[in-house]
């Protein structure tokens, strides 16, 4: 445990300084790996420093000045992490962007942050930036890592990272100590990165985080969680997201542990198995995906295996459920567990690449209890945490041995939480951001006297655990005053392996309704087994058989509401399966897959109207945006189904 308010010593108060110390103290220890050409290529801390140094010197040769901003865009690559470090070493600010952003979104951030340099992964990003550059007054250089398909471009502002490093070598001949001198000039209060949050409403806001914010947060969390220098993590979540920055950059540098970059986004689960991380982070969506995959594979197994797996998974989940509820576990189940480990849990975790995990987190959204219990039941130490960009990514984490279903744990060291009169969570810590870049208005609303208004409704329970209910502005009431927490319902719906997204509607309405998205992989597989032919998502979604399937899931959710007196009035009464998948390109959900309610309410107003009328189907037209920014129209006839409300049984 650390003393509150501990300051950073001058020699270790920025990431470049820390990398330099790592390079001196553990020069041959692996800092980062990348799977390339089918082989894991390792780079030591000395390599990390040297590579970053050459990039930094090259940028300096191109005229990079203190305070300049460099956009970083691409999948997780060592070269991009080095570029972050190079930027910071020169006193610059890294601005990571989501790699799947469309041009318009990139344009906004690059203009807003006045980005002069962009370091990107490959041609896909270069193509977008070439368009952005035409209209952007600030962007001067576009630097890419993978030269494929780019050799023919002759533009002087376009160059490869290798060329930049060559420039750096030449620059170093005349300025041998330039890089080290610049690192020395850095200080804890310098802005290290600006993280643009995708924002469920309006334009993205850029949170400025200083070296001090990030180092203290990373260190406090690492010390409380007992992270060492021998951890292995997989860096596969977007670099633009503060979580990846904390785990794969900040904590890795602070503790000196190794980061592994997968070969491609499509190989992540396979690479996970090869690396066998000890420290793993995944948002609920990924845990759910893994679970769905496991379930599909089990269904394909032979009868005996299937029965065996189901039996032991059930045992594990019963045990875990009781543990989480602090209830005694019957002896016979405890005796069965080692057998289950031998036959099922061990081989399964091994196959998933999760056998070595000591510490795993889930955050971003509430995780379905069934998913949480599944993984914990397998013996994987999954814990919930709560955080946001404005807090340098972390606010509270569940302690080992004190994990519960419905809390997000206790505050980090040096972090204070208060609940406002309106029920909103507020916090103060050394990790609290410096403000939103060029947005004093938003900063004023969020940051008051060092306290951040989180925008989440929550409370602290009698054990000191923080519980989050929903976004403060999303907890609402039906027309008759019944409490309605849409996200709570949606999370319950999304636990179904057949449902990918759900949007519940009901504020000021007579009853609750829902838009659903089926999971194309799972439902498609289900349909194939039953010889149900379909052509596309739209077609499959509207099959009566699929509605029957989904109906059971909705009824299941309604039934689970009966257990809670306060929420049982908010059962889903009507639903429809949307004709298209909600997509960040269409701005229906954010890049981190949070539902944008306002936008959806507006875009699908006719559908909502139909849900509150007596009709049983409705025609729709929707605009879809393709990856390259072009748009097209989808037309469909969408069915609406009613659900009989359940009433609590008087006695069971």
């Amino acid at each position: 445990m650390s003393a509150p308010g501990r300051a950073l010593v001058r020699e270790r108060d920025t990431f470049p300084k820390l990398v330099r110390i790592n390079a001196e103290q553990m020069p041959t220890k692996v800092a980062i790996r990348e799977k390339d050409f089918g082989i894991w290529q390792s780079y030591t801390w000395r390599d990390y420093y040297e590579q970053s140094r050459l990039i930094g010197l090259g940028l300096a040769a191109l005229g990079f000045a203190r305070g300049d901003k460099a956009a970083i865009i691409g999948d997780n690559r060592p070269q991009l992490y080095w570029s972050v470090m190079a930027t910071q070493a020169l006193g610059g600010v890294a601005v990571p962007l989501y790699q799947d952003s469309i041009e318009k979104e990139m344009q906004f951030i690059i203009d807003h942050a006045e980005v002069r340099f962009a370091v990107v992964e490959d041609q896909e990003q270069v193509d977008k930036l070439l368009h952005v550059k035409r209209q952007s007054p600030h962007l001067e250089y576009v630097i890419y890592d993978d030269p494929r398909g780019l050799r023919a471009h002759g533009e002087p502002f376009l160059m490869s990272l290798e060329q930049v490093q060559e420039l750096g070598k030449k620059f170093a001949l005349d300025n041998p100590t330039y890089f080290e001198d610049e690192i020395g000039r850095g200080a804890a209060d310098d802005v290290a990165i600006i993280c643009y949050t995708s924002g469920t409403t309006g334009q993205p806001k850029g949170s400025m985080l200083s070296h001090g914010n990030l180092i203290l947060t990373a260190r406090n969390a690492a010390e409380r969680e007992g992270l060492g220098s021998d951890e292995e993590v997989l860096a596969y979540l977007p670099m633009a997201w503060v979580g990846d920055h904390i785990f794969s950059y900040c904590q890795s540098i602070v503790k000196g542990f190794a980061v592994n970059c997968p070969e491609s986004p499509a190989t992540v689960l396979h690479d996970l198995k090869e690396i066998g991380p000890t420290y793993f982070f995944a948002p609920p969506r990924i845990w759910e995906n893994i679970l769905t995959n496991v379930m599909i594979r089990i269904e394909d197994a032979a009868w005996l295996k299937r029965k065996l797996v189901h039996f032991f998974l059930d045992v594990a989940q019963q045990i875990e459920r009781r543990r989480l509820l602090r209830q005694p576990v019957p002896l016979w189940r405890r005796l069965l567990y080692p057998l289950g480990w031998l036959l099922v849990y061990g081989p399964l975790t091994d196959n998933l690449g999760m056998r070595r995990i000591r510490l795993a987190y889930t955050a971003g959204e509430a995780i379905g209890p069934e998913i949480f219990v599944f993984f914990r039941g397998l013996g994987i130490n999954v814990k919930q945490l709560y955080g946001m960009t404005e807090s340098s990514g972390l606010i509270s984490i569940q302690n080992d041995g004190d994990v519960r279903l419905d809390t997000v744990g206790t505050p980090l060291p040096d972090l204070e939480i208060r609940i406002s009169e309106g029920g909103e969570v507020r916090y103060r810590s050394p990790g609290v951001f410096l403000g939103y870049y060029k947005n004093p208005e938003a900063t004023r609303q969020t940051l008051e006297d060092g306290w951040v208004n989180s925008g989440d409704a929550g409370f602290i329970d009698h054990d000191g655990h923080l519980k989050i209910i929903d976004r403060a502005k999303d907890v609402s009431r039906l027309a008759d005053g019944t409490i309605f927490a849409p996200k709570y319902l949606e999370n319950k719906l999304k636990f179904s392996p057949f449902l990918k997204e759900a949007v519940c509607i009901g504020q000021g309405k007579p009853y609750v309704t829902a838009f659903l998205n089926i999971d194309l992989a799972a439902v498609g597989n289900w349909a194939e087994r039953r010889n149900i032919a379909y052509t596309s998502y739209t077609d499959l979604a509207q099959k009566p058989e699929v509605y029957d399937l989904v109906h059971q899931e909705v009824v299941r959710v309604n039934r689970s509401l009966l257990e809670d007196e306060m929420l049982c009035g908010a059962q889903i009464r009507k639903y429809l399966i949307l004709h298209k998948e909600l997509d960040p390109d269409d701005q229906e959900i954010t890049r981190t897959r949070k539902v944008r309610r306002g936008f959806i309410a507006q875009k699908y107003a006719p559908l909502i109207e139909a849900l509150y009328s007596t009709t049983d189907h409705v025609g729709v037209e929707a605009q879809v945006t393709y990856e390259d920014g072009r748009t097209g129209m989808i037309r469909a006839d969408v069915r609406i189904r009613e659900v009989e409300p359940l009433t609590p049984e008087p006695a069971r």
Partner: protein
Amino acid sequence: MNETPNGRPLLEVDGISVHFGAVEALDRVSLDVPRGEIVAIIGPNGAGKTTLLNAISGFYHPVEGRIVFDGADRTYLRPYQVAALGVARTFQNVALFKGMSVLDNIMTGRLLKMNGNFLLDALYWGPARRQELEHRAFVERIIDFLEIQAIRKTPASRLPYGLQKRVELGRALAAEPQLLLLDEPMAGMNVEEKEDMCRFILDVNEEFGTTIALVEHDMSVVMDISDRVVVLDYGRKIADGPPQEVRADPAVIDAYLGVAHA
């Protein structure tokens, strides 16, 4: 036209005819494929596109005319001899080894580059081992290039059609060809797969400097990526030139849309 250093196109087809019984599949067709260019051969069904490709790769031998590859007459070579000269191809109907993994399929493309020694290969020792590693490294570069890392170990038969086509391209590339013949690389693909394939074809051309002759049915795709377009109809060449010119050629419009244009 881009002429080569020694002044000759990589491939010259000079007035070849191919007959199947009484059917004249190709009637005195000539075309040049200059080094480093992408030449598309298009035409309606039955125009003789695939026959032309088969004649170039040695499956059929023309009854008249000459095929000159890299400055020497190659009219009467057999397919394996053509392959050894540096001509690789893909097929209209994917012709992969179904039960073999993607990696192994592409590895077979290296066959002509391997100097096998039965005993050493069996022992996986000395030069055999070194050679195997070199070939594997080359194949990995192709896998990386075609972005198929995720399916490296997947049996070919389990892949969707679009990916099988990509693997087939990979196998052709493994032979490090000077001339790559693609037979309907985009057939049966959806729009997105087509766009991906276009990108790969352009990248192959740019990255490896490979000269490419491709047969394609879909005219719009071809116009975007080729330097030159040759149009066949009923075994005869009816147009030859840059895409913009060919697109506007009345004879081509007739062949594709019927003769009803105003």
